[in-house]
């Protein structure tokens, strides 16, 4: 698996323009805005979805077929992608948080712990949903076709959420109690619970990806 990590890191080494764009955006937002929630989420999400880029590069000119004749297993390939996505997301988060801490200090901005927590939760939620859906789709359909599948899945997801909202309105379900209960929880509990849920979603997605790649022909 070490070889796969090296390959992915080397693939990202060629993404100089991407990283330059992220750094420019981050610098711009940190120098002009006083609230860093958006920029923290933005950078974390951008780093989180880098795994999808490496998958597209693996697929380039049927490269996946050749990759799988090297001494790696299909299972290892899938696990590495999920681990790499976690690693890249956390790296992005640490980098942007570090920059935010330094620049907020220089600019005398009072950057609140709560803001940071909400940014982390928001960005991790988006990254988790995107990766949990996109990795298996890309494993199954390849980089090109998975874009169409992604639109269908997210479109379907949005429709389900909309229907759920309409249904709860029709049935007059009161969510206030639930929201109040969530607000009453301690930050650590919310954080812990949230990461457990994200972890479970990723594990389920990983299992499904293994099932998908086992059946795929190259």
């Amino acid at each position, binding site marked *: 698996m*070490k*070889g796969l990590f*090296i*390959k992915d890191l*080397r*693939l990202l*080494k*060629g993404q100089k323009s991407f990283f330059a764009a992220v750094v420019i955006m981050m610098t711009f937002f940190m120098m002009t805005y006083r609230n860093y929630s958006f920029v923290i989420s933005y950078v974390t999400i951008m780093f989180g979805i880098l795994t999808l880029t490496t998958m597209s*590069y*693996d697929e*380039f*000119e*049927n*490269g*996946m*077929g*050749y*990759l*799988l*004749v*090297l*001494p*790696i*297993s299909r299972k*290892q390939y899938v696990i590495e992608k999920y681990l790499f996505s976690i690693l890249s997301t956390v790296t992005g988060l640490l980098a942007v948080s570090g920059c935010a801490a330094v620049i907020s200090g220089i600019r005398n901005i009072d950057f609140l712990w709560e803001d940071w927590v909400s940014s982390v939760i928001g960005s991790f939620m988006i990254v988790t949903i995107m990766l949990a859906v996109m990795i298996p789709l890309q494993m199954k359909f390849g980089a090109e076709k998975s874009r169409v599948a992604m639109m269908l899945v997210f479109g379907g997801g949005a429709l389900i959420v909309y229907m759920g909202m309409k249904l709860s309105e029709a049935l007059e379900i009161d969510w206030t109690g639930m929201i109040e209960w969530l607000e009453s929880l301690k930050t650590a509990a919310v954080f812990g619970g949230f990461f457990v849920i994200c972890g479970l979603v990723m594990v389920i997605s990983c299992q499904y990806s293994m099932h998908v790649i086992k*059946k795929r*022909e*190259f």
Partner: protein
Amino acid sequence: MLRLNKVKKQYEGFELNCTLEVQEGCITGLIGKNGAGKSTTFKAILGLISMDGGSIEIFGKPISDIGIQDKEDIGVVLSDAGFSGYLTIYDLIPMLRSMYRNFQEEEFIRECERFRLPMNKKIKEFSTGMKRKLQVVAALTHEAKLLILDEPTAGLDVVARDVLLDMLRAYMEHEGRAILISSHISSDLEGLCDDIYMINDGKIVLYEETDVLLDSYGILKMTTEQYDKLEKEHILRCRREEFGYSCLTDQRQFYQENYPEIAVEKGTIDELIMMMIRGEK
């Protein structure tokens, strides 16, 4: 080393049904026209496609039991796939070093330099021949026991082809090794392979040792009258021609001795393939 027993794979309009064996110490060739089933056979061996029937054994194990350590003993060249085009050769070195316990880093670099492969250029910018050379070098530099080479000479100029074939001969100087190789350039296989399988429409239509193929097989050319009087016991395929008939035999000497009036040609492997594929039984 490698055994395929009635391996079946069905696609729309195509069915593979292949039985072949690669013995230790041998270079076995697989020849056939485009779409005959060569690449499908290679992909089945490498587990890249599922089988609809039959069995494959590598190193005496069913392919379902082939693990990562066994894969280290296999070197591969694929005709339609390769390393990610977004990597450079310098990127590949640490990757291959951590994947193969016996990766010969210095030899890999030396061979890349010999083939004048740019170390810092993205592989997607390589020509087809350069990509093929890179795969061959990678396959040969981790002390594999079995090489599975699908069209390794495609896209190479004559000199590079010659160098590559010499590399394969040098590889076979060590004991306990074997190669399965396909090529559409049959002259490559003529001078390299110990035995040859010919595949057509997914089926093996001929298997023979290369020496026997070149020494005993031949093409007879005759008029219709001569054809009518001919003993057809050793005739494998016939084809109607403007002058009469062309026939493929595996007993060239028999016809040379008994039918001196008939033109008997040794025939190249290409001609033998043509007769096997386009001739009638």
